[in-house]
């Protein structure tokens, strides 16, 4: 019984180590094999109880009128096809509800708000918080 419990303990320890490691691996994979896009910022700075102070990144490219005319739901997953403008900053090419199939660069995001009158989506990006000392980040 003690041996069985010890095996369970080892599995629990491995799980506790595995989840943070998985987070690191996924983050590093995007940095090494993904494509870099620059977004113009409008920062606001609140605080997270577990991760400390951060800047909320508010992007210029956060609204789009998709080709597809349908009712988009709040928090629905969307896939944003990106390109770059003449100044080298990210520009939205298109927004779709399904994951693109070919080797097209995309960002998986969520619908923050949908204006049915103009068929416009406000986008909630998965990288809207930048943690660390606010002073150094603003510079």
């Amino acid at each position, binding site marked *: 019984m003690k041996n069985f419990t010890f095996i369970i303990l080892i599995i629990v320890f491995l799980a506790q180590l595995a989840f943070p490691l998985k987070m690191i691996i996924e*983050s590093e994979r995007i940095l090494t094999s993904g494509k870099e896009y620059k977004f113009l910022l409008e920062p606001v700075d609140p605080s997270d109880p*577990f991760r400390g102070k951060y800047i909320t990144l508010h992007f210029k490219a956060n609204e789009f009128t998709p080709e597809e005319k349908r009712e988009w739901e709040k928090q629905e997953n969307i896939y944003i096809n990106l390109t770059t403008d003449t100044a080298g900053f990210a520009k939205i090419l298109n927004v779709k509800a399904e994951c693109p199939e070919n080797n097209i660069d995309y960002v998986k995001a969520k619908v923050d708000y949908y204006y049915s009158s103009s068929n416009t989506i406000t986008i909630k990006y998965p990288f809207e918080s930048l943690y*660390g000392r606010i002073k150094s980040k603003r510079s």
Partner: protein
Amino acid sequence: MNKNKIENLQELIQAGIIDEVTVQKIHNYYEGKKGNSVSKMLIVFSIFGAFLIGSGIILIIAHNWDELSKTVKTICAFLPLIIGQFLYAYTFLKKKDNVAWKESTSTFLFFAVGACISLISQIYNIHGDLSSFLLLWMLLCLPLIYILKANAISLFYIAGTTYYACEVGYWSYPHSEPYLYWILLLLAIPRYSYLLRKLPESNFTFFHNWIIPLSLIISLGTISKQHEIIMFISYLSLFGIFQLLGNVKLFNNNNKIAGNGYRILGMIGTNSMLLSLSFKWFWEDLARKSFIFSQVIISPEFLAAALLSITACILLFVQSKSKSIKDINPFELVFIIFIITFILGRFNSTLPIIFINVTIFIYGIAMIRRGAITDHLGILNYGLLIITALITCRFFDINISFIIRGVLFVAVGTGFFLANYFILHKRKIESNKDKVL
């Protein structure tokens, strides 16, 4: 053993009431208790110490955080977790019977897991909402409760799952129902059940008897979606269940009032809800509301209200079987009275207001009477407090003259003084009688 007790024992020996052998047994008993209280303090301080050390390590590292490289930061994030796991494993292998070791290492590891995940999120700027972080943290720490049979982290776990329920059900937008909360709470019940059966006098059991009902009270509201008004039935039934559970020996910590979290929360909850329902806004809103029966019957609010009310009725029936009608505590019937009043309120908004106010008044008087009979100042004053609260609530919504309001307050204030004076005077007379005898 203190000086007074030693003097009393000497007196009893001289009077020939007890002999030297009995005195030695009494002395050994008190010495044993002192040892137990010393080890309890050690456990408490070990838990606090582990918590503070864990927090302190994080703060020290945080001071120079921005100057460190990503690799060093990652190592610092994992270090408390690895140390915690090592200490936990050491306790499991070598110190399994040492309660101070079990509780402190479990507490340290619990916070180290949370700290590691949050630090990694911060270092790598990983987006994620608070609810998924809390869920992951609690799931990773749940087995720790059962492997070492640690109790402090059971309390932290229940607090964490309650925070998760609040985050999902109240504070995030859009709100959703945290159905996982109920499963997470159920997973902690085996440990609680063990404490109730095997360690009913333990301080950890005492804390669990408070934290579990508190968690249920806080999280029940997350079920509410469209028919919030029906949640009043759910809450009164829940408080009714708590009052009934407070009668069960398993939950009432040997009838000690402070240890009976169920009864106290049940009583305070019932009173608070009745006072809020004594205002006309609720009943006017209920009479105006339109319910579509086919939608209401499948709503989570109705299902919760039905489940809780049926459970309360079953508990009431089981407990009442062995009692006569006059022994039934009328406060335990409040949830039934409210259900009837609620149905009545759909057709008339005035009668229920009168009914609820009369119920609160009778409730207060009955508490005062019970306090006087059982010679319990706390219960007596609680009854007076209920009456005062009722009058204060009516102060705001009834158009009565200042003179009448003043007279009412003077009457209640005088009642406070007189009731307490008579009880204390009665006790003094009785203790003088005992001394004479």
